[in-house]
């Protein structure tokens, strides 16, 4: 894993009420001094996985298919690339949640953050 690439996952809030939409984003940044070529093995650029404890409650890529073409994205020094999706929880119970944001390049870059759903 390159140290000059960082990935950060964020949600738009830290607390949500039951039924509220959660906006999730993962940002990849080139923290180095040289441009970095990021390689993707398909049209998929990212994924988001929401966990409650050990249970996976949502995965963005469920039920999705992707074009099987290689793509390269050049990240200049200091440049960032953000991918976002919205999770619309159905029957999600109140409690602590964790979301893992992945930039699905080869190799992938992952990071996680936590949020709460209150009554």
């Amino acid at each position, binding site marked *: 894993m390159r140290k000059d690439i960082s990935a950060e996952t964020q949600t738009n809030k830290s607390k949500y009420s039951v039924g509220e939409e959660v906006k999730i984003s993962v940002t990849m940044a080139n923290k180095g001094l040289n441009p970095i070529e990021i390689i993707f093995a*398909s049209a998929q650029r990212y994924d988001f996985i929401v966990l409650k404890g050990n249970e996976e409650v949502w995965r963005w890529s*469920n039920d999705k*298919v*992707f*074009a*099987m*073409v*290689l793509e390269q994205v050049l990240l200049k020094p200091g440049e960032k690339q953000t991918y976002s999706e919205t999770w619309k929880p159905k029957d999600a119970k109140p409690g602590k949640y964790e979301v893992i944001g992945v930039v699905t390049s080869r190799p992938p870059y992952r990071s996680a953050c936590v949020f709460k759903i209150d009554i």
Partner: protein
Amino acid sequence: MKSRDGVSVILMSLILLVSFSGFIITSASANKAKVEVIVGFVAQPDAELVKRHGGEIHHTYTIITAMYVSLPEEAIEPLRKNPKITYIHENGKVEALEQTIPWGIDRIKAPQAWAESTGTGVKIAILDTGVGPHKDLIVYGGYDFVNSDTDPKDDNGHGTHVAGTAAALYNDLGVVGAAPEAYLYAVKVLDSGGSGTLDWVIKGIEWSVNNGMQIISMSLGTSTDYQALHDAVDAAYGKGLLLVAAAGNSGNPAGRGDNVGYPAKYDSVIAVAATDQNDKRASWSSTGQAVELAAPGVDIYSTWIGDGYATKSGTSMATPHVSGTAALVWAENPTLTNAEVRKILQDTATDLGTAGKDNQYGYGLVNAQAAVSATPSPKPLAVSIINPSDGSTVKGTVIIQASVKNTAAPIDSVEYAIDSGNSILMTYNPSNGYWEADWDTTTIADGPHTITVRATDTEGNSDEKTITVTVANTVKTLSVTVVTDKAEYSRNSWVYITVTVKDSATGNQLEGATVDVTVYHPDGSVAGTGSGTTASDGVARFRYRVGPKAPTGTYKVVATASLAGYETGTGETTFKVV
């Protein structure tokens, strides 16, 4: 035009392509304007003659007796009449006319197959981001499931690229596909970013089946196995379509492990791996037992949106090389089944990697020349029964559907017969291309029966196919009786339970029925359960232990029996513990 030597790059010289379009005699005020022309001379280029007419000489050609000059416009007419001058041509614009054969098309030896087959009329459904419009492609139809409209134009480029590899036109521009006369249909199931949903893909497969497609080309995938997707591809294959999909780009340099994606991994789909210009598997090309064929997939040049062209890599690019080759074979012999086309592609592939089929290259590099060569001549008639499926169970009214391919003469009649019965004429349904007839299965007894479909052409050729189905109109029910050996029991004793299962209608004892028994306490709670299978006498025996502290009162025993072809039946009885 078909050239066995391949296409030569035609670079026209300025002289040959220029067209003389005539000059306007301008007014005196524009007299000084000079026009660039090529002046041809009868004998020798005459510089003095040109200069006398106010001309400026730029170049004297050596291989032709001509000069490239700028002449005042009004000097052109007089000079053309001069007996020393043969012609004066305006220096027109020239475009290089050039069709490129991408390295992959050449590598699979498609040009060598074109003398025999160009895939004419074989319908290929490209399930992708859409196709075109593009001047090097013809799209014959399709649908857009992403936007729910009838215009499947490409808003990404990927679908256009894939389509070009399968069937770009043979002309004097752009590229050429593996099967330049196959019919492309665009089924948009991927959005502008190249992602799609299962729902769109399944609808795309459904559309392809309902609209008479022969080949479904899927340069898409997922690493998850979905039952619905599996069922959809199996159903399409069962209906006679050939499915081709990208094996995936999840491979590793060592080529180890099973990382083939779906739908490529399903048995009913041909999984295609990607090779490079050295015929080596691309390091990222997925490997596994499901890999069936390999095709060029590194740096593939093909059509792109905006009437453009692009170079891309992926098993996406390898896939249409196989789809196009399948079209070449199928056009050569339309009477082949999908399985027969598939076998030809496997048997004629150029073996790569370890000898025989392997996890990196499957049967090897698809070889269009060998595949078309190996394709047997079509039979004058070929019948296949599409519905019902061989071995299925039917009831009520069944629509018998048959596909009849004729290559020699028009079809004269298509008939079906049940068992050795009378032949009944079938009618042609133009909306799906099938010959159909309604069969009322209630007119014969339940049980196995054969359906034979026979087609005859006007020259007397015929072909027939027979399948067997089981008619099951009568709902069969089970009669289940439960008895205990005694009416009353004390604590610490065994209750022997006998369950007998019979056919309600015939009274015959049934062997092999699954029996589930539940014993209930007097308060209704479950005291015990057991499972067994009836023997040849239709009986399953159980025993239940009444414990030392068993409650007294009336216990209930319920037995449920199930057997294929029957509705489940239940029976019950009671006993007392005193």
